[in-house]
């Protein structure tokens, strides 16, 4: 993982997800306020984790 400081505007605090009326609410980081179905939230979560793993090992090895 890079020790360089994040570029301006990059969020360093996680958003907070919660369940309400059978839906998932994502609050933050700042500027984010989204309501998703459980399926959409689950798929977004998977996508976020995969992207985070790639980012942690950046730069990616040549394919």
């Amino acid at each position: 993982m890079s020790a360089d400081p994040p570029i301006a505007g990059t969020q360093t605090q996680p958003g907070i997800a919660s369940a309400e009326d059978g839906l998932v609410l994502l609050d933050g980081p700042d500027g984010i306020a989204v309501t998703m179905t459980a399926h959409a939230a689950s798929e977004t979560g998977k996508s976020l984790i995969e992207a985070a793993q790639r980012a942690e090992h950046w730069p990616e090895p040549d394919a």
Partner: protein
Amino acid sequence: MATGAKVAVYMKDNILFTDRFLKGRRGVHLALEERAILENAISEVRTIDARTTIVSAGQTLSNSTLLIDGFMCRYLDDKEGMRQLVAVQVPGDFVDLHAYPLRTLDHDVATLTAATVAIVPHRALDGINANKPELTRKLWFSTLLDAAIHRAWLFRLGRLDAVGRVAHFLSETNARLQPVGLSDGKRFAFGVTQNDIAEICGITNVHANRVLRQLREEGLCVFRSSLVDILDVKGLARRGQFSPDYLYIDAGPQHSSNESHSS
């Protein structure tokens, strides 16, 4: 629809239609002569039901609308018909003064609650523009104030989370209603729905419901039965990163009076 009787009631109570226009704003106190000119520019007063669209995007306009009482909004619909409010207008606002130079608007204008409006024909504004440069500057100020509120709207949607957006909007509305005598500084009647709050803040109704509950549980604000009760004005402003500077509110001694004599 406007009636002569409605006009008579207002005049009997000695309430001017323009009484709230620019009231308590910095550097734009209306002289008595200017107020008289504006009053005489009004061709008609109308009462309009809640949830009524009065201007559609692209429509050619020959009048502008001064909001006397009630709440109105400007909005855009996306391709799926989901509505995004892009402005909320409070009593005293010249809702579509920008239609005077533009002639058509790029958005719709509607009432949120029942409203009373004064209609000002553009030909009357032509006369003011030609002969009264200082009053014209004050009308210009009014549209620039709208622009400042739009900038804050962008900040709210672009930088804040859901709680912050609602906190910012309710703080702003409180600050706008105070100069026109419709808030005591922490409590005001606001006949909009939770769904309106959602469309204003770019969140879903479910999200708005959760946010309003959270604000109540944190002891910041209660929104219930068309009444907003701000329990902690500073705390709500802090949560919404709200500062009223962009509203150009006059903190001076003449704040309560919006009239001065022409020099």
